[in-house]
């Protein structure tokens, strides 16, 4: 019997910051991190002295490849005046900063530190799309690359297996895309801020202005079914099934539970954390779920004593539309094979019974890979504190939210549960 995991002492989140994700050709990782850090500082209700930070944990996947600079711990430590105190980089592909969060939690729970800063950064826009594709593929496994799989390709293949097993189709993927794009305009930090309908209407207006023949789309799904408007990338993944290339940074201030109220009257508490590792496509138990996510969820639920029905909303790793459907099943929100139906029925909308990716998700908020894990937690922070503005979940008694973060082709998956008490 495995023992039940628990923290030796409680950990609270008392500040959170995020840069506005996007493409910034004339800015670099230091610029993104300062933006997130300043945002975090202003979020600490009672203020704090950055000199009190005892350790820094930074997630970064592969700036080594993207901008030929590795070893981001000391660079960001120096940037915020943290030297000579320790700075550690964590790498778990697209889950790199979920790992920095976890290391920060362990550092405090062990009693070694009381105040740590965790976060992540990625600078992806200085390379061509082909190069970024190659860089991200470094997080897959060699057998997948030899077969010619790209990241969209791996998720495309999972989609064909899922479709075959459960009877879903492309239209069900479109429901995810349309929902994410409906949330995005409500998030001022999102990379994209238009609904699919707005994008469609803008294209129609553009055609009219140019005197070109106007495409006959009347619905969002007609637009998304048009191979010119929404070209295929890796069947059945089309352009609007895929998250964009992004630059950005995120960070959070973690403190020991017993001093949390020195920083804010509205701290969030770490209720559950889980992490799993997974095998490649060929060796995985199944092509319709991620064993690493299921393991991470089991750990997080066991630690928290909570059940899927207790989690009121979540940010999940929708690097591709099919992924969102699989994740909401893997974290137990819906039964295997039921996720796509729940999306179709509107359960995952902002006003649904289980709002998913209220931020717009990776699809619209952006996905600077190393910054994403803590970027997802930033949305939980905003929602649980009632600070999400136009995208605030209507439930007046919001108390518990979770994130699920995925790295590579499912090689590293995490689940993190935060709660308000």
């Amino acid at each position, binding site marked *: 019997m495995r023992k039940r995991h628990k923290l030796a002492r409680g950990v609270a989140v008392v500040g959170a910051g995020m840069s506005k994700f996007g493409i910034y050709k004339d800015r670099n990782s230091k610029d993104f991190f300062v933006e997130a850090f300043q945002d975090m500082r202003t979020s600490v209700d009672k203020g704090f002295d950055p000199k009190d930070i005892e350790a820094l944990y930074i997630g970064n996947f592969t700036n080594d490849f993207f901008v030929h600079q590795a070893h981001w711990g000391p660079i960001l430590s120096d940037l915020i005046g943290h030297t000579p105190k320790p700075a550690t980089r964590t790498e778990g592909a697209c889950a790199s900063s979920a790992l920095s969060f976890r290391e920060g939690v362990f550092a405090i729970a062990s009693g070694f530190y009381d105040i740590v800063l965790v976060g992540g950064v990625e600078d992806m826009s200085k390379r061509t*799309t*082909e*190069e970024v*594709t*190659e860089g991200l*593929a470094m997080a897959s496994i*060699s*057998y*997948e*690359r*030899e*077969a*010619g*799989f*790209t990241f*969209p*390709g*791996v998720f*495309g*293949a*999972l989609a*064909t*297996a899922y479709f*075959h097993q459960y009877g879903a189709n492309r239209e069900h993927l479109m429901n995810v895309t349309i929902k994410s794009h409906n949330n995005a305009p409500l998030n001022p930090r999102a990379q994209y801020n238009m609904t699919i309908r707005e994008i469609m209407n803008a294209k129609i207006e553009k055609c009219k202005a140019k005197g070109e023949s106007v495409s006959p789309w009347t619905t969002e799904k007609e637009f998304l079914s048009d191979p010119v408007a929404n*070209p*295929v*990338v*890796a*069947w*059945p*993944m089309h352009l609007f099934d895929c998250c964009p290339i992004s630059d950005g940074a995120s960070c959070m201030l973690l403190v020991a539970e017993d001093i949390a109220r020195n920083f804010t009257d509205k701290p969030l508490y770490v209720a559950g954390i889980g992490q799993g590792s997974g095998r*490649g*496509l*060929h*060796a995985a138990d199944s*092509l319709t779920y991620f064993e690493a996510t299921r393991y991470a969820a089991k750990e997080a639920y066991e630690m928290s004593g909570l059940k899927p029905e207790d989690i009121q909303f979540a940010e999940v790793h929708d690097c591709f539309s099919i992924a969102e459907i699989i994740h909401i099943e893997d974290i137990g929100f819906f039964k295997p094979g039921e996720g796509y139906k729940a999306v179709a029925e509107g359960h995952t909308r902002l006003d649904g019974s289980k709002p998913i990716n209220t931020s717009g998700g990776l699809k619209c908020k952006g996905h600077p890979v190393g910054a994403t894990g803590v970027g997802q937690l930033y949305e939980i922070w905003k929602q649980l504190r009632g600070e999400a503005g136009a995208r605030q979940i209507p439930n007046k008694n919001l108390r518990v939210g979770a994130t699920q973060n995925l790295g590579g082709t499912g090689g590293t998956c995490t689940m993190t549960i935060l709660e308000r008490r």
Partner: protein
Amino acid sequence: MEDRPFSDNSFQQFLNEEKLMGSRCKICRELFVPPRPFCPKCNNTKMEWVPIKGIGKLSAFTSIFVGPPYMVKEGYDRKHPYIAGVIELEEGPKVDARIEGIDANKPELIKIGTPLAATYLHRGEGAEKKTYLAFKPE
């Protein structure tokens, strides 16, 4: 008896010789393709090489229209997509492989479960020469 190490390198050498080989645990009989040097099921290194028939069926696939630089170099692009898939072998394990002999431009017609047989793609010249595992309809 084959005495090559149970490594990715040996797996590739076999592919170069147009052989698909796996490793089998001598203790628990679990079969691994590509080979593993260590049986994670019963924790030992007593392995033997097993020739794989190269017959299987399609478990999952994608038709890739935007490929990485190394596939673009082979001549694939938006107008010339290629298929990558996961094949469940008759012996049980699954492998990743390229799929040949099926129209990548019509992915909507491709069926999960399609019977396939192994074939070997020799690509590149000189030091760049390498063989890739592929499957095509039987």
